[in-house]
């Protein structure tokens, strides 16, 4: 290729670049079926758990205990212990709910949408991105449940025949949420599990301890790799991906309806569905980076999760970041163009009111820092920088939800009903606690389940290609 000849020849860089495509290699050269299987299954099957794992799990568990305490006190005392009040009746619970669900969306995007687009590079990261989705949905789903005040009556949200002869009201976006989030959780778990079944077969066959053989044998469902099974399996995977794609777009759309259907300046806007979905993917990719960068370092997976992955995730973040930027711009434009006094005041108040600092943090973390630097390939492939940027974007996206929930609510139509919002220590404990729960669940996942899909990695190795000569001979 002519263009690649013009590039400076750096031997280190040359090694990492695939000459066929001119892109960074998806998998470092020199890997075989056996070597990738060994590398991935050894992490799980080793009897020696790294000390660092125990340290992190201990930390995650300790922080998750904070959540336990916060929720226990909440159940005893009620939601009055939180900072929610009038007019800000939706505080941290809804902010965290939207933030966590959004983080989950990148997992589905990576596993489903990139599968449909035949983006082979996703194969190394899709398993733990899906795991991230599920644990994020676990953290997210908890918030509306504990926010309803009497969580033991949470099943009232579901339509079921009952002695009160009462049924849910299907015209409410809050009920749509119940179906969207429960479907999302179910399909994510099923997709994740089905994706792991062949790998469980590998684990069953490679483990030496009786317990591991029984455990992986049971959950592998007796997978034996028949090509007939594989054919149906591939069809089912593609169909699940095809179903998960509209699902993931619908979930955050429905969540944005919770806001957009309400007649409130700052919420009542048609830009919300696409802008929420893009924001979800933006923060989700940031979270994938936050998890992938330490993991590949800790477990020496640099050959499987390469610069190409980090680079591509940076590009996706750049693209979705700009959709988010468009959303912010459109909100401001519509506040002016609508000529609505309330809309205009809401936007002015959001930017320059007493909570204007949160809008500043949002713009700094979501637009100013990432969207200027992610253009640079050098920075996109700089691991410390990308780790930093992932934290910045996650912070920014949390503030986006804070801005949407709080700054739209705290100064509404009548100045006499204006208030403010101050989160209490229980709010912070619940939020920080879910971070601990997420970390602990994720660490259990990397310890006990194969975090990189071995069967999918095998399809990308040079040995997996059926050589043209052999096929031609057979065709004769």
């Amino acid at each position: 290729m002519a263009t690649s000849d013009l590039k400076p020849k750096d031997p280190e860089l040359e090694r990492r670049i695939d000459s066929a495509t001119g892109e960074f290699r998806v998998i470092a050269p020199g890997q075989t079926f056996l070597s990738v299987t060994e590398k991935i299954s050894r992490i799980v099957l080793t009897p020696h758990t790294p000390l660092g794992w125990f340290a992190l799990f201990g930390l995650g568990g300790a922080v998750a205990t904070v959540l336990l305490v916060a929720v226990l006190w909440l159940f005893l005392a009620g939601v009055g212990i939180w900072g929610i009040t009038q007019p800000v009746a939706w505080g941290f619970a809804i902010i965290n709910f939207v933030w966590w669900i959004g983080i989950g969306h990148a997992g589905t995007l990576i596993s489903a949408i990139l599968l449909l687009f035949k983006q082979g590079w996703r194969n190394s990261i899709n398993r733990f991105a899906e795991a991230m989705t599920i644990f994020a949905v676990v953290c997210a789903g908890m918030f509306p449940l504990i926010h309803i005040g009497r969580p033991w009556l949470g099943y009232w949200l579901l339509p079921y025949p009952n002695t009160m002869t009462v049924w849910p009201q299907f015209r409410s976006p809050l009920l749509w949420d119940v179906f969207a989030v429960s479907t999302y959780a179910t399909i994510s778990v099923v997709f994740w599990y089905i994706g792991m079944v062949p790998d469980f077969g590998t684990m069953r066959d490679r483990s030496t301890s009786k317990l591991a053989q029984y455990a992986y044998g049971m959950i592998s469902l007796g997978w034996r790799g028949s090509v007939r099974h594989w054919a149906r399996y591939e069809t089912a995977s593609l169909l699940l991906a095809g179903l998960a794609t509209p699902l993931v777009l619908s979930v955050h759309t429905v969540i944005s309806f919770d806001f957009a259907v309400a007649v409130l300046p700052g919420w009542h806007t048609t830009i919300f569905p696409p802008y929420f979905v893009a924001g979800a993917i933006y923060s989700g990719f940031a979270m994938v980076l936050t998890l992938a960068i330490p993991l590949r370092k800790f477990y020496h997976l640099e050959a499987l999760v390469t610069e190409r992955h980090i680079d591509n995730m940076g590009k996706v973040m750049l693209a979705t970041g700009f959709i988010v930027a468009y959303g912010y711009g459109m909100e401001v434009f519509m506040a002016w163009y609508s000529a609505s006094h309330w809309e205009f005041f809401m936007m002015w108040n959001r930017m320059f009111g007493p909570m204007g600092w949160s809008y500043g943090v949002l713009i700094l973390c979501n637009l100013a820092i990432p969207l200027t630097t992610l253009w640079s390939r050098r920075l996109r492939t700089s691991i410390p920088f990308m780790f930093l940027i992932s934290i910045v974007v996650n912070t920014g996206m949390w503030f986006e939800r804070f801005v949407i929930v709080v700054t739209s609510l705290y100064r509404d139509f009548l100045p006499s009903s204006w208030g403010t919002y101050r989160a209490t220590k229980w709010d912070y404990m619940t939020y920080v606690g879910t971070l601990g729960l997420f970390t602990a669940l994720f660490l259990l996942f990397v310890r006990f389940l194969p975090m990189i899909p071995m069967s999918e990695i095998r399809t990308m190795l040079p040995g997996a290609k059926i050589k043209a000569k052999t096929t031609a001979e057979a065709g004769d």
Partner: protein
Amino acid sequence: MPPREGIYGLLAEFETPGELVRAARQARLDGWRRLDCYSPYPLEEAAEAIGFHRNKVPLLTLIGGLMGLAAMFGLETWVSTLAYPLNIAGRPTYSWPAFIIPAYEWTILFAGLSAAFGMLALNGLPSLYHPLFNAPNFRDGATTDKFFLCLEALDPKFDIVAAKAYLESFAPVLVVEVEY
């Protein structure tokens, strides 16, 4: 019912997917019908080679999806118009645009569950025991890095000596008898 004792089949082990596909295609051409290939990753060419072109997973998924759609839309309509009609800001009780969203979610839910469990059911999984697991080399390689062709004893052409010689002609690493 297949016989539960004696020989399940003959299993030939190959190092590369190309050799497996070549052998499978030839065996199919030579009239073998009860045969299967085993590989550690999806190998479309091998499925094609043994004449497995279509499967019923898409049909099951479609049926599941339609059932989900009908179930939720029906439930919403029945609840909102007959069982518990509520006047919400004067909107019609049969507010079909609002009903689309839960119905859409249930379409996906039922379709997805049908795809996943339908695939497992069609594959005959879970089946924790299979005669192939008795083959000494099968579990070492079939889920890691080896490729297997199995000629099953139920095939009318199956004769243990002739079949063994036939498999040897493809120059596999090893041919083993698999017992029930």
